[in-house]
Each structure stands twice: as structure tokens, then as C-alpha cells.
């Protein structure tokens, strides 16, 4: 009975207690007691955690702000670069679309040869309507060649140097184009004006011209090829005791925004001035 001394009994009791507690805990009988005891601990942990996070943020915010500002500046630079590239790409897309339109016009009118050119300048004087293109004699441009776009007639080559040419627009006050009204089947003259508007003159009084009538080049005079689209009639005017009717025309080409043109290179303008009798 030496085995059952106080020390051994103490040990056995402890083992039995712990085993009992483990058995009860694993069986789930101690869960309510655990919940009651853990709740205060959880509340304390939450309280400590909030304070700790506040203190940590207070101490680390300056460093984070500097990093954020550096990142922001880098991103802004990147955004600016991308915006610049976007603008450049959009501009190239616009140019490509213009070139595609000109190419399409060339394909639909294969009887002529064309020299594509970019508009690089405009006339300085407000009395005149001219544009300057970047093709000249070195590129095959010659005096008097007609100039068109995919939409219609633009004008004629008026002056050339080696690498540039000056084009007189059909809206210039000194420009006269022989035209034909498609629906009425009559011929008249298209003239420019000081304001850049174009109008028809020398329309016979008995001609029936309606707004919307298509105006095409007639080819008379030998300055322009025939059947090039010029514009549409806006309105007609006839005065008493006048020999002819007049009409205002909306040109199909917007001369204020023209960027690229085609020079008709295989059309030779006919100089009929020797045939005109001297006055």
C-alpha cells in the first residue's frame, strides 16, 4: 500500500480530472462555459486591435502618402504619354481614312491617272481663294492640271515650283468653270465670288432648274474633264429684263477643311486662246 501515498493519489486525481475535462470538452458539454469565458477575451482583443491599427496607421501614413504621391505622379506621366499617343493615332487614322477615300475615288474613275497631294497652305490674302499642295514639277504636276478630291472638283493648278503647287479653287472670284446641269440637260458657267460662294450664270431663261439639281463639269473649253461632280443647286434667281437666270450652288467639297487632293495628271488642258478673236 505504499503505492497509494498522498503523492500518487494527487497525481491520479489530476490525471482523472484532466481526462474528464478533455472528455467533456470533446463531447461538447463545456462549450457554453468556453463561450462565456472567451467573450470578454474577444472584446478585449478587439479593443486592443483597433488601438493598435490606429497607432500603426498614424506612424506609417507619412511614408505611405509619399509612396502614393510618387505612384500618382508616375501614373499621371503615363496617362499623359498615352493621351499624346492617342491623339497621334487618331490623327493618323483620319489621314488614313482620307487616303482610303482618295484611293477609292481613283479606283472608281480608272480612266485618269492621279497624283495624291497634301494641302500644306492657304492663300494669305482674303480676296483670293487658293491652296498650296506639296507636289510640284518633280512629281509630274504641270500647269493647268485639274485637281479633285473623292467628293468632286476642287480647282486647277495655277502656279508650280519643283516641290509645291498653287491651286486656284473654283470658289475664287476669277474662276470660271463650264458646267452641265444633269437633270435640265443645259450648260452654264460656274463662277466664284469674293466670299467664296459659287453660283451659276448664263442659265437660259426658259431652263427649268430646281434646287437639288446636280452640277457636273461639261468639259467645254478644255480646262476640266467632263462629268466631274461639282455640287448641287441651292436656289435660282431670275430678274426682269435679265438675259439669263442665275443660281447659287452648294459645292460638294468643303474648301475650308480640305486636307488632301488628287491632281489629274493625264488630262491635258486645251489652250483655246488662239481661237478667241481679239476684241
Amino acid at each position, binding site marked *: 500500500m505504499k503505492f497509494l501515498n498522498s503523492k500518487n493519489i494527487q497525481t491520479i486525481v489530476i490525471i482523472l480530472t484532466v481526462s474528464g475535462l478533455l472528455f467533456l470538452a470533446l463531447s461538447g458539454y463545456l462549450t457554453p462555459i468556453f463561450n462565456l469565458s472567451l467573450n470578454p477575451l474577444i472584446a478585449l482583443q478587439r479593443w486592443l486591435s483597433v488601438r493598435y491599427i490606429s497607432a500603426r496607421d498614424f506612424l506609417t501614413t507619412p511614408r505611405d502618402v509619399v509612396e502614393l504621391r510618387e505612384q500618382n505622379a508616375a501614373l499621371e506621366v503615363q496617362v499623359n504619354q498615352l493621351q499624346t499617343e492617342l491623339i497621334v493615332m487618331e490623327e493618323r487614322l483620319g489621314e488614313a481614312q482620307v487616303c482610303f477615300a482618295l484611293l477609292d475615288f481613283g479606283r472608281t474613275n480608272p480612266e485618269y491617272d492621279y497624283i495624291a497631294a497634301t494641302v500644306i497652305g492657304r*492663300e*494669305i490674302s*482674303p*480676296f*483670293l481663294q487658293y491652296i498650296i499642295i506639296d507636289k510640284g514639277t518633280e512629281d509630274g504636276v504641270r500647269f493647268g492640271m485639274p485637281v479633285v478630291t473623292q467628293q468632286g472638283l476642287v480647282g486647277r493648278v495655277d502656279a508650280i515650283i519643283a516641290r509645291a503647287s498653287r491651286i*486656284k479653287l473654283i470658289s475664287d472670284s*476669277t474662276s470660271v468653270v463650264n458646267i452641265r446641269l444633269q437633270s435640265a440637260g443645259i450648260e452654264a458657267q460656274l463662277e466664284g465670288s*469674293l466670299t467664296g460662294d459659287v453660283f451659276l450664270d448664263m442659265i437660259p431663261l426658259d431652263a427649268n432648274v430646281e434646287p437639288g439639281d446636280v452640277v457636273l463639269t461639261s468639259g467645254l473649253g478644255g480646262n476640266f474633264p467632263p462629268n466631274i461632280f461639282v455640287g448641287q443647286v441651292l436656289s435660282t434667281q431670275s430678274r426682269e429684263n435679265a438675259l439669263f437666270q442665275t443660281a447659287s450652288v452648294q459645292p460638294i467639297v468643303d474648301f475650308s477643311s480640305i486636307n488632301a487632293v488628287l491632281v489629274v495628271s493625264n488630262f491635258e488642258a486645251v489652250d483655246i486662246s488662239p481661237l478667241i478673236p481679239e476684241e
Partner: protein
Amino acid sequence: MPLIAGSADLILLFFAAWSLQEKVKNSWLWAAIAGILISIVSAMPFFAPLIGYMGVVGISKLLQKRVWRIPIIAMFIVTLLGTFFQQALYLLVLQISGAPLTWGESFDTVMLPSVLLNLIFALPIYAVASELVGRIYPLEADV
């Protein structure tokens, strides 16, 4: 920047402002160079831009001696007179060369809008020219 059919001529304004500066002595030379260069590019007859700009410089020099105390007023007067002179010269030359232009229509649609636009831009151009003259011809330091 067109207004009806008129447009501002910044070169004219610059020469008007440049010539009004007291320190500038060689504005005739620069006006001649500019007139020749513009004549090469423009469809106007060769001598018209040249005479136009030389005329503006002449008007500037005349007014400089008379309105020297109020240079900004002088700038506006030179702009007004210079624009009318240049546009009238252009119109006359074009009429002589056969253009079907009338004085009435040209005055209403080209000259008046051009004068208005030039007057609007006159003050900023004068400021730029004054600044440029200050940098090119610095004040002499008293010894």
C-alpha cells in the same frame, strides 16, 4: 481665322508694332524681306504685298513722331490705316488685273472684318513686339 471673308494679318500687325518702337531703325529692311517672301507664296501680283507692308511701316514712322507719348493709341491708328491701305491696294491691283470685284462688296465683306480682326489682335502683338525689342535692344547702363 476668317470673319465673313476677312482675316487678320499678323505680319502686318507685327510690322506696325515693330516700327512704332523708338529703338528700331531697320524696320524697312525687314518689311521688304517679308514683302518679297509673301509675294513669292501669295497669288497676289508680286509687288502688292511688298508695297503693302512698306506702306504700313511708312504710316508707323509718320505716327511715331506725332503720337509718341501714347504708343498703344498709335498702334490702333496704324492698324486701322495700314489695314485699309493694304486691302485697298490689293483690291485696286486685282481690279486692274481683271478680277470682278466691287468696292462696296469688298468693303463690307473683306475690309471691315479684316480691320476688326486686326484691331482685336493689335494689342497682344504690340505687347509681344515691345518685349522682343526690350530683349534685342537692351537699355544702356549709365556708367
